[in-house]
């Protein structure tokens, strides 16, 4: 069953700015892992931001259905509550707000949305402890301010940790592998796999530049994005081809078809 169905999605910088997405088509079924690869500036991150509801981008054409709902009609917080999670390429530092407070508030917003009772401090702490172990987070972490003073790698690990805590249906991970050393990459990938396997309905969309990540998180489908469109899709072997040969041959293939 399609969890996410993007049809002919066009988006530009709000207020008549640069056109970035120029007709994206993408369907992700429940339980699948997809990867989008592409050069810098091809629109991969914009796609993630548009799906999460970033208002600096304006959707001008197309449709997005998420778990049976019209995603584009939902406010960003409603998308999160419906089970969409964006792991940011550049997570924001928020000094002065503890991670524990922030995450508990977020989890409880989702629970309220689904008519579930809010988690008490004790229950939340128990739930979080397990996720912290999964991602090998330091004990002091929950008491620290959100991302404050974290290294690039720590921030990315924190994004995946947050995903584990939020337990979304669809995780969008925007270049989560960049900035991670090899050990952290292994831990984080292991975390993503565990989250994915925890429920057969969960799906993951990875945005990455490197095939390396896909050795750890094996995708069902790999897509190539060029100039705001998905121009080629294939299995995991496509990622290996891209790693070896770059993107030029895909561009040539597209040009030949046109």
């Amino acid at each position, binding site marked *: 069953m399609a969890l996410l169905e993007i049809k002919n999605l066009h988006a530009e910088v709000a207020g008549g700015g640069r056109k970035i997405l120029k007709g994206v088509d993408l369907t992700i079924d429940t339980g699948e892992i997809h990867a989008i690869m592409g050069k810098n500036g091809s629109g991969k991150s914009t796609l993630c931001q548009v799906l*999460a*509801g*970033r*208002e600096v981008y304006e959707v001008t054409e197309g449709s997005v259905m998420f778990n049976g709902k019209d995603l584009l009609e939902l*406010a*960003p*917080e409603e*998308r*999160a*509550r419906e089970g969409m*999670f*964006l792991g*940011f390429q550049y*997570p*924001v530092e*928020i*000094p*002065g*707000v*503890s991670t*524990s*407070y*922030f*995450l508990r*508030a*977020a*989890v409880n*917003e*989702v629970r309220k*949305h689904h008519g579930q009772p809010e988690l008490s*401090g*004790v229950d939340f*702490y128990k739930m979080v402890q397990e996720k912290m172990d999964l991602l090998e987070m330091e004990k*002091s972490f*929950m*008491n620290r*301010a959100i991302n404050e003073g974290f290294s690039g790698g720590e921030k990315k690990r924190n994004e995946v940790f*947050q995903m584990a805590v*939020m337990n979304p249906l669809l995780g969008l991970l925007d270049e989560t592998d960049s900035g991670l050393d090899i050990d952290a990459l292994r831990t984080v990938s292991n975390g993503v796999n565990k989250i994915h396997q925890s429920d057969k309905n969960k799906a993951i969309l990875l945005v990455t530049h490197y095939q390396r990540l896909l050795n750890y998180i094996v995708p069902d489908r790999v897509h190539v994005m060029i100039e705001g469109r998905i121009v080629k899709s294939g299995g995991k072997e496509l990622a290996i081809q891209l790693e070896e040969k770059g993107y030029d041959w895909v561009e040539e293939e597209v040009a030949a078809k046109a």
Partner: protein
Amino acid sequence: MTAVLEPTNSFVKSFEKTPGHARPWVNDLRGRGMDVFKQLGFPTTKQEEWRDTNISAIANATWSPAKLVTGQAAFDLSQKYSFGKAAAAELVFINGHFDPHLSAVSNLPKGIKALSLEKAFESDAALLETHLGKYAKIEQHPFAALNTSFVREGAFVHVAKGATCEKPIHLLFLTLPGAETAVSHPRVLVVAEENSECSVVETYAGSDSSVYLTNAVTEIVQGKNSRIDHNKLQQEGNAGYHTALMQVVLEGRSLFVSHSTSIGSKLTRNDLHVFFGGENAEATLNGLVLANGEQHIDNHTLLQHEKAHCPSHELYKHVLDGKATGVFKGKIFVQKDAQKTDSKQTSKSLLLSDTAFMNSQPALEIYADDVKCTHGSTIGPVDENAVFYLISRGLSLAQARHLMTYAFAADITRRIKIAPVRARIEDFMTALHGLPQDLRIADEARHDVALL
């Protein structure tokens, strides 16, 4: 031209009616204060230092000296602001009058005194005569001159050589409704001798909707290698006026830390002057202003670097909503002998409405050639990147904005060492923004409690 005051002015009249003090030098001090005040008159917006703060509402009102109020109302208000056992001593002043029944001074360690000024005129006459009125430059500050002409009551804190005190000394100045348009002139003197260490908190609070003026002067003089952590918490009632000059004088290797928080009042003008009188003295001035409605909060600071090798750090943050106005003018003055001065000044302001207004001006006056002085100022709305980050996790837009505002202020509050001061500000913030108290990040121990 400044207007020389009419003899019909309510202050001049009440000065003439004030009975003389038993100590002649106090009468001299008062007399000098009134002479200067008469000379200067009330400041107007034509004067550079007062350009952004119009105090004509104060100048045009008729003020009468605030009278002592006792009973349940005084008790209740003092309880509301009391630090209880968290303070080494708590001196409570109601409408400018010391109330011994509401005060507690029994927990003070050896070598540390905290008592009402009126008592200190008897018990510590020599120290007072040496220090009181010797530092505040009344010629440059009409309100300080006015305070000086009514010097009578307030607090005297003496920290003897080598003495230290872990808990803070809390000076609580409360105003209760009595006669309308009542004025009090609290006076504080802190003398910290060599190698001593102490925390002092001045809280100013009053009931809402009564028009009053608190006109305070604080003088702090620090001996070599002494450390003072000073906190000022201004939570005056919403119709109250607050004017204050704090003059700090530092000897070599001494350390002064100020946390000045302005929450209440209709109009506040704080002047905070630090004089570096010895090498390697250091000062940190942190300020937080949380204003809304039509509040006007003005903070003028002066870091007067007279000696070499003195670092100073200054961070003032404003959160302004409604039609509130904030003024920050930070002057750094570096005399030619003050080589190797290292001074950093930062002003950051968060505007939560289109009608709030912030005026931030650094002023550097440098006569030495080997110094490092930097300043920076930002004024803007809530960071939308951060707001998006929060709402993308399911928080509502309003929640995210509140959280960002809290976080902006927490940058200051978490630097405050005195737990009850921090708690008071955080309580105010969480109540204002409808946030739960377990938001606090202040320290790990407390946070664990909140979490479990």
